[in-house]
């Protein structure tokens, strides 16, 4: 019963319509939050007592790094759902997530590097966080390459799901393994239990940007998945109808 409902909700046609409605409702708040976050982060927030103004890159760097991991987990989770319950939609979400995740990972690496130059005196160090983020980028690239290499879409989706799952098991292992080189990267700031060791005036723009990034991911993944749906269902009646209408 539940299963039936779920399958119907996840039917490509239904999803295509629903996503079309949702996208503007995600994109507009995303834009507003980004503007607000940038304004509070770059203009309103005071300079840091130690790092001066250069810490401000954190408002891009930190949310991007969060997203890079969050998206990988979403991708693996969607892949698993697609693999186990054969829900096509989950497969499409998994595949659509990979390039977005790779972009956020790349963004986190680049901004981190720009931040590292004034702070550590070097663009790059083989530090634990940096290295595991770099490997995460390779994992994403592997997923994308595998998806591109397999012609059959259905087969590609299942292969990608397996690879993403293997990767998700490995991420904590990779993370701990690279911690063996003593780490230069700071410890967690916001998630510490007692109280975030960041001043409220800096925390607010950081959280605004984090939510904006999440919304960005949500509407871009929906857009990509919509394209994926059209591509995969291009022979079905409803897509042909849609094509004729426009």
């Amino acid at each position: 019963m539940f299963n039936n409902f779920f399958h119907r909700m996840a039917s490509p046609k239904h999803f295509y319509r629903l996503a079309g409605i949702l996208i503007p409702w995600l994109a507009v708040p995303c834009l507003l939050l980004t503007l607000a976050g940038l304004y509070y982060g770059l203009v309103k927030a005071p300079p840091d007592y130690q790092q001066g103004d250069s810490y401000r890159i954190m408002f891009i760097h930190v949310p991007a790094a969060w997203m890079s991991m969050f998206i990988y987990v979403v991708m693996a989770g969607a892949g698993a759902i697609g693999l186990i319950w054969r829900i096509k939609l989950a497969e499409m979400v998994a595949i659509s997530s990979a390039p977005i995740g790779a972009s956020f990972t790349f963004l986190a690496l680049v901004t981190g590097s720009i931040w590292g130059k004034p702070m550590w005196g070097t663009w790059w160090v083989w530090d634990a966080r940096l290295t595991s983020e770099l490997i995460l980028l390779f994992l994403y690239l592997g997923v994308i390459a595998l998806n591109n290499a397999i012609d059959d879409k259905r087969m590609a989706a299942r292969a990608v799901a397996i690879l993403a799952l293997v990767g998700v098991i490995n991420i904590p292992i990779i993370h701990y393994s690279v911690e063996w080189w003593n780490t230069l990267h700071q410890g967690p700031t916001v998630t510490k239990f007692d109280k975030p060791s960041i001043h409220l005036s800096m925390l607010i723009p950081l959280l605004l940007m984090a939510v904006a990034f999440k919304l960005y991911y949500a509407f871009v993944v929906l857009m990509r998945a919509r394209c994926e749906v059209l591509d995969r269902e291009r022979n079905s009646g409803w897509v042909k109808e849609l094509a004729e209408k426009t």
Partner: protein
Amino acid sequence: MTPKRKKRIMLIGLMLAGVAIAAGFALQAFNENLMFFYTPSEVSAGEAPAGRMIRVGGLVTEGSVQRQSDGLTVQFDVTDNNKTITVQYTGILPDLFREGQGIVAHGQLQEDRLFVAAEVLAKHDENYMPPEVADALKATHDAATSDNAKKVN
């Protein structure tokens, strides 16, 4: 229950057992000192081996940094707010190196308890605040450093 299904359950059981034992091994490994990282207290208590490459971490004691006449060799004290050890390093120090800052030194402990570092890494801490807040905090919370020492690890 068909024999096939029994076999399948057996395989899954084996798999879970493997994962569990793997976790056991990993936990055991993490209980030991993997990184050969020691605090000044541990060094003072004689827990750190001499003459071998180890890591020592802590805060640079205020006013302890002394440059030697060659201009490159630096000597400073590192503390965890309990015990203090003296570190000697020859080379260029990282930009973030300053008194009161957390550092990690990689090197050898000499017989005379002097730690000769081959490498010194500075850590920028995870605190973000405007300068005035930092000043205020410093004035009121001198004891907060004990908390910081822990984070350096």
